[in-house]
């Protein structure tokens, strides 16, 4: 394990910027640290780099406690959101700067500078001053400068946030390439979930100074541990589901009753929240026998996203987003949304935590309900009446 930040807290006056955060990064890993602005990501990175002293907790690098060590003894590469290239030094001098401190002989140093400028494709600009470079080139030189001394871990603190979208995507891919080429252990901080999901082997999501979730990007996306992570990693449709009966536990979702078997004993209160990703929803035919859940809706808005359409559909009291790839329906059209049960994730309404369990249809209620078609209120009453 290269980095082990253990129970880090940082207090500024009365303000707790990070609250008992633990984070580990293994050798060669690219970990994405994701969270909204002001959630404490930068403070955490500054603590790891040694520019901020934690109020509590320890930072270990290569298995060695470095909490009291100054930044210059940590062998941590650091790239900020804004350029911190030294404006009075040329590109080559900037890249060589970190090597001077190692006492490397000048010949070897020059070689390493060339290697790293080659790596970022800027060997031709070695005599240029930072002010003569474009924003993207500055980022590249900064990467080269941070990598040249061979740091044990590279900390990238929102390195792409100040760039325009096209450049951001291009540099994002390039960072991925450079990381694979050098194998450098990397902690990549961002508030952009797309960026984090595209790059990271593993994601750590922070919220309000605490870790809200950690895991493989796809796992976090598909079964978020809580509603914060669900919201932060892309859009989801939120359906409030009142508890309609307790043995078996019955939830009323979109006017339809579903049976829910929690994996562990848990109290649910009188309502839970059910979420579904927009691509888990599809326009169905009214009497689709395969759809576990079909919700009658009216299409209210269509937004063309190039590769797909986002359909905004209304039920009686909720708005749902559907990602749709075929020809879109007309606005105002009444349709039925089909949702497969394995696309639904149940969350505790109060704590926001995910409740693991199995959802299934109430066999007895379904046929009657489906043959009756629309009119959810009526239908809801009827299915509860059946029990």
């Amino acid at each position: 394990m290269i980095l082990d930040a253990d129970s880090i807290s940082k207090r500024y006056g009365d303000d707790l910027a990070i609250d008992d955060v633990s984070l580990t990064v293994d050798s060669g890993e690219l970990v994405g640290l994701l969270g909204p602005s002001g959630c404490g990501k930068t403070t955490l990175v500054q603590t790891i780099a040694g520019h901020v002293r934690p109020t509590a907790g320890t930072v270990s690098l290569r298995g060695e406690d470095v909490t009291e060590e100054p930044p210059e003894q940590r062998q941590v590469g650091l790239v900020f959101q804004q350029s911190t290239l030294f404006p009075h030094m040329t590109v080559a001098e900037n890249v060589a700067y970190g090597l001077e401190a190692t006492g490397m002989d000048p010949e070897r140093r020059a070689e390493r500078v060339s290697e790293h400028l080659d790596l970022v494709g800027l060997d031709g600009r070695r005599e240029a001053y930072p002010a003569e470079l474009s924003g993207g080139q500055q980022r590249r030189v900064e990467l080269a400068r941070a990598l040249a001394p061979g740091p044990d871990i590279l900390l990238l603190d929102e390195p792409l946030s100040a760039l325009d979208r096209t450049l951001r995507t291009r540099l994002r891919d390039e960072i991925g390439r450079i990381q694979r080429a050098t194998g450098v252990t990397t902690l990549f901080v961002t508030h952009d979930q797309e960026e984090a999901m595209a790059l990271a082997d593993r994601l750590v999501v922070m919220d309000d100074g605490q870790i809200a979730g950690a895991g493989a990007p796809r796992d976090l996306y598909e079964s978020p541990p809580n509603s914060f992570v669900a919201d932060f990693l892309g859009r989801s449709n939120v359906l409030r589901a009142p508890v309609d009966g307790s043995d078996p536990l019955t939830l009323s979702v979109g006017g339809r009753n579903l049976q829910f078997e929690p994996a562990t004993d848990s109290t649910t209160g009188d309502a839970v929240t059910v979420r579904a990703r927009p691509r888990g929803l599809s326009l169905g035919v009214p009497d689709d026998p395969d759809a576990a859940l079909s919700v009658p809706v009216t299409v209210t808005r269509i937004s063309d996203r190039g590769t797909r359409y986002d359909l905004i559909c209304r039920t009686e009291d909720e708005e749902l987003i559907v990602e749709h790839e075929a020809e879109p329906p007309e606005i105002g059209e009444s349709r039925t949304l089909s949702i497969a049960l394995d696309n639904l994730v149940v969350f505790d309404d109060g704590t926001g935590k995910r409740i693991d369990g199995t959802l299934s249809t109430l066999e007895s209620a379904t046929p009657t309900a489906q043959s009756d078609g629309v009119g959810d209120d009526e239908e809801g009453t009827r299915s509860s009446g059946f029990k």
Partner: protein
Amino acid sequence: MSPVDALSGRRPTRPTGLFLPALLGGLLVVYFAVPFAAFLARTGSVDILGGLSSPEARTAIRNSLLTAPVATLIATVFGVPLAYVLARKSFPGKRLIEGLVILPLIVPPVVGGAMLLTAVGRFTPIGSAAAAAGIPLTGSLSGVVLAQTFVAAPFVIITAQSGFSAIDERLEQSSRSLGHGPLATFWNVSLPLARGAIVAGIVLTFARAIGEFGATMMVAYNPRTMPTRIWVEFIAGGIDAIVPLALALFAITLTVLAAVQYFGRVPTVIER
């Protein structure tokens, strides 16, 4: 802008809101220029070289050229680190220290001189100890340096502080993370980046030190420096008597300014 203006390629003159500020500022510029021109107009009738070749004048020039650079050096060596700490750290009592730094600027120099006398005068513990050790702090070149440093040092401190403050702290953090300690970072990054401001401060401090009169007169009326000599000659011989020394003083300051700008490649004295 008329089409004719556009065709002839002339820049359209826009009599916009700048007229009034320009008028007010212009009046002040005229007020600076007139005494200067009037004084220079006197030079024709005065034997400048003759005035400068008297033993008294030569001693005064020598004394000024000995003391002002020393005062500037002291102010820089102690003032720049102080400026760096003030720019980078916040600590209890920082406001007080910043207030102390500008105190010499707001206290009239002659009062500042009197304050120095009460601290290091001949009959004070410090003054008598120094005198016993053979370094009299009043009525000596050391006294002149003390007076000049007291009055002139704030310029380099304040200018350097604003120079250091303008550097993004993350540049220093990058340097630290690249393996350079705090001293190396100061030397390699902070100092070069604040160079323009520091050089400007040094020039201002030198100009203030070599022209210092009020505090010097209190602490060390003797030996004479150029400003105190100018005063003595003015009392004895009026305006014409002081023209040679005044011009010499002006020339020295200008030369230093030009040299510093040339070697330091600083565009203007007050860049920021």
